[in-house]
């Protein structure tokens, strides 16, 4: 199980699942033919669809078909995770599957931004930490958003970076749209002074 820390609601522990391929693009995370949806719901069942299922719907030999999603809340992937299309359906699908965090040595810009807006934590690690994760792909890790600490099973602690505003949004529940709406007077003044009023 993913274990929330009773004393620190911003920390959780979970086993990892490793997809070591580099450049896992958002078309792999959710193929385009599933993007005709008009909601965010239920996309977990098509997360990595073409890696999970054969054309006839039967299971492929693939790790996400063999694990209990409730036990594995952290996806560790090869370099440049989430490249390609800007589809926010990618983090929606991963979260609906059960993931709470993704770890890679590099995470693509738009995917990272989309993930943060939905509470899927993108954690960029150095090569040494990545190698340690791969060396023990069954391990349980702890991720603490307050201290930005990723703790591996062997006790190694890696401090990761999260853009501060995004971190505050996640920690304090600041709503980014609301934050922008509070600036509407400033926005109106900008429009007036720059000849951009309606």
């Amino acid at each position, binding site marked *: 199980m993913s274990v929330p820390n009773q004393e620190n609601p911003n920390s959780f522990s979970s086993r990892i699942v490793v997809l070591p*391929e*580099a*450049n896992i*693009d958002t*078309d*792999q995370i959710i*193929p*385009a*033919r599933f*993007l*005709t*949806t*008009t*909601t*965010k719901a239920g996309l977990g069942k098509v997360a990595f669809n*073409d890696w999970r299922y054969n*054309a006839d719907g039967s299971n492929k030999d693939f790790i996400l078909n063999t694990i209990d999603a409730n036990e594995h809340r952290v996806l560790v992937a090869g*370099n*440049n995770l989430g*490249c*390609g*299309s*800007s*589809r*926010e359906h990618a983090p929606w699908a991963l979260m609906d599957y059960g993931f709470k965090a993704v770890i890679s040595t*590099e995470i*693509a*810009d*738009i995917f990272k*931004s*989309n993930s943060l*807006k*939905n509470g899927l934590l993108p954690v960029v690690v150095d090569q040494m930490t990545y190698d340690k994760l791969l060396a023990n792909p069954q391990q349980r890790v702890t991720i603490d958003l307050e201290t930005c600490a990723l703790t591996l099973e062997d006790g190694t602690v890696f401090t990761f970076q999260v*853009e*501060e*505003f995004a971190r*505050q949004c996640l920690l304090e529940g600041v709503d*980014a*749209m609301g*934050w*922008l*709406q509070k*600036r*509407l007077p*400033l*926005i109106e003044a*900008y*429009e007036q002074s*720059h000849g*951009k009023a*309606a």
Partner: protein
Amino acid sequence: MAKSLFEKVWDAHVVEPEGATSPAVLYIDLHLVHEVTSPQAFSELEARGLKVRRPDRTFATLDHSIPTLRPDADGNRPYITAQAEIQVHTLEQNAAKNGVRLFGYDAENRGVVHVIGPEMGLTQPGYTVVCGDSHTSTHGAFGCIAFGIGTSEVGHVLATQCLAQRKPKTMRITVDGKLQPGVTGKDVALTVIATLGFSGGTGYALEYAGPVIEALDMEGRMTVCNLSIEAGARCGMIAPDAKTVEWLRGRQYVPQGAAYDAAAAEWLKLASDEGAIFDKEIRIDGSAIEPMATWGTSPDQGAPIVKGVPVAANEDQARALKYMGLHGGDSRDVAKVDVVFIGSCTNGRMADLRAAAEIFKGRKVAEGVRALVVPGSEWVRLEAEKEGLDKIFTEAGAEWRLPGCSMCIAMNGDFVLPGQLAVSTSNRNFEGRQGPGSRTVLASPATAAASAIAGHVADPRQFMALENA
């Protein structure tokens, strides 16, 4: 202080500067919307009791989910699924409710979002442009900061006309020299991506400069900027020049008459100042660029066609070659091509179709090859038909369709069958991008047309009457 093109446009759009704990509030001049990445954003607005704040700066089109086949006699369109049709109707309803102009089926300007923006002059130099689509970087060809956003951010812009953004680093890519005959903007872009690597541009705003970029026509510049995301960069820009000004003159949404010349004078001041500092600079010898084709499953896995399929240098490359069914060391004429797709926001414009038509003219698509030509917009379709390009395509044995994203993203019913090899003028050769099990080679319109004729990946120069050949 000397400023870069990016810094000039960025600075002009800062509503609130960034601080240690807060991002900049960046004003968005133009918000383009399509059916796939907008429904959940409109739902979010509705849940909050909000309307689109600036419908006059918001424009919508139908491109991703729509069929490119004609409607039947009763006007029914052959949607791939009922869900695709619902998605289209959802955008129609959301646009109507919010007073947003939708270029729908009845509009003469409907088309692929990154084709119609510039075509109508909605895209103007110095603008910030966003869309829930990673190829929004296309509009950077006009000196815009233009980038793709997720659906949450689509909601932010609909509600406030602003985004919370951190300023990216800047990189200038200077392409020196002069392109050889038969080499196009697409070949430049694929060379840039192969040079930078698939994530080499991550975190950067790119500026393309140098004599090769200056010599490209606007369509070629759009192709180059369009593919910035394939090196990981969210945006790519080119300084507006006389070519930009002439290309936009008279278009529907630009100022007209004397007001246009006044606007143009301002646009020409946007170019990076002498001495502007970039976080990174790279130079590429444009004279050495040759017609390119990808051989792997990411856009940086490309090479000059004449060099053949490279031998894998690492495990990732070996895996990509295996998926593609290609063998390192083979010449490119070994693998048989099943499908050729010409179109998309990358290469679905008039200049692209003319380049393809030049190759197709008087020739036939090789037996066993399915060739699909999909114009980027209604305007492109009508213009191409006026020039008789549609006849050239159909006489060669290619299909001529209605505008849309079509086989680039393969969500509308146009797709490549499992295991088939496609040469495509689009932007992504990811596994399964053009349909489950599809294998994609990215190339220019000329190369795609040449490959359709030859039945294998072919250097288009063999079909061209080149001055220096």
